């Protein structure tokens, strides 16, 4: 199959060796080296995240994925992990369309390459849009954390969108955690809220309503860095798609460039598999 050159090469071409050590073209070997170094970068980031989480001091708790990420675009209510599951599925499917494009390239099937690459680009764009939604929801938040004057911590039952006024009659807060059964409501509770020492709504680089500040910082950095990789991948795929349409690879006699762009795209999917596990599940 791909890479493993089955044809016999002349000994002279192999600097005196009889067998080529890797049997791989220069470009493909280099993209593999690049991917290893990029994998080391993501390993470092995820290990730093693990360190922050594992070394957390007593009395602090790390946020739970299914409680933070529970909204679905266009729907009200709680759908824990459903949207991120859809995103993950879209990225896996776009990886499949990419590998089908590579396979079509090995058969010199130009129409197949163009079709599958186009679908891969669509999948990538869908994923990027979803990530924008996730970030927007994460930054806005849903249960602003309120530090009350008496030292207790409360969470709003529903944090209104910017510009909407709060109604003291329907106001409610839960004490201790967003799912706590200890709920205070009505004008009395609204007064407590107005006299609060500090209100943390949503997330930014210095504080967030979910947990330790490092949580949001790692979320922004790691998913942001991954999103940057997806953006780069979509651009690369578009360039390769344009060249495939123009017939550049057909004239060259092989579609290896599709394979190289594909390696990068699969790597992006591979990183997401780990980000998904360590940010949303574990």
């Amino acid at each position: 199959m791909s890479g493993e050159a089955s044809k016999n090469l002349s000994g002279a071409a192999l600097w005196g060796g009889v067998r080529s050590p890797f049997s791989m073209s220069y470009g493909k070997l280099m993209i593999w080296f690049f991917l290893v170094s990029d994998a080391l970068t993501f390993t470092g980031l995820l290990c730093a995240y693990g360190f922050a989480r594992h070394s957390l001091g007593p009395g602090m708790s790390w946020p739970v994925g299914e409680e933070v990420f529970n909204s679905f675009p266009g729907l009200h209510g709680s759908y824990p992990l459903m949207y991120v599951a859809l995103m993950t599925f879209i990225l896996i499917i776009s990886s499949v369309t990419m590998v089908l494009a590579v396979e079509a390239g090995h058969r010199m099937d130009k129409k197949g390459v163009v079709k599958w690459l186009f679908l891969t680009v669509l999948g990538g764009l869908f994923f990027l849009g979803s990530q924008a939604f996730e970030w927007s929801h994460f930054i806005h938040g849903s249960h602003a954390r309120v530090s009350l004057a008496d030292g207790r911590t409360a969470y709003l039952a529903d944090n209104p969108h910017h510009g909407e006024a709060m109604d003291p009659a329907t106001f409610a807060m839960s004490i201790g955690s967003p799912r706590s059964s200890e709920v205070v409501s009505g004008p009395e509770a609204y007064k407590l809220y107005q006299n609060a020492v500090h209100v943390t709504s949503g997330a930014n680089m210095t504080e967030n309503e979910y947990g330790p500040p490092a949580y949001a910082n790692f979320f922004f950095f790691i998913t942001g860095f991954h999103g940057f990789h997806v953006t780069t991948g979509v651009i690369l795929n578009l360039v390769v798609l344009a060249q495939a349409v123009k017939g550049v690879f057909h004239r060259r006699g092989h579609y290896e460039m599709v394979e190289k762009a594909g390696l990068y795209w699969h790597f992006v999917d591979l990183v997401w598999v780990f980000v998904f596990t360590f940010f949303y599940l574990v």
Partner: protein
Amino acid sequence: MERDDIIEYSLGAGHSEEQGRAIRKKIYFVTILLSVVTTVEVLLGVFWTNLFPNAWHWVKWVFIMLTLVKASYIVMTFMHLGDERRNIRGLILIPYGLFLMYAVFILIWEATYVHNVLKLFL
């Protein structure tokens, strides 16, 4: 100018219609496998508190194992590393694997130490 010192491995990488069918079959198999594993992970993530309320430690390891299964299928089938020569597989996986094991060991070791120090003073 045509250079004759560059070996065009890429030209030998093509395959026939028949081989293509077998490869596509494998791709569809891996697609279904990855989808099923992801579905299992999400369902476990949403419902583990109801299903196994006191088994977080085990649920966590199940997540990590399923992730490694997914990762190896992506690398070996989608990235074709399984079809490459053994030399290149080792060149990619062994140095990275060694570094990964070291990084995970050092993160757990040091984080445990920091956690214990914080426990003394907070």
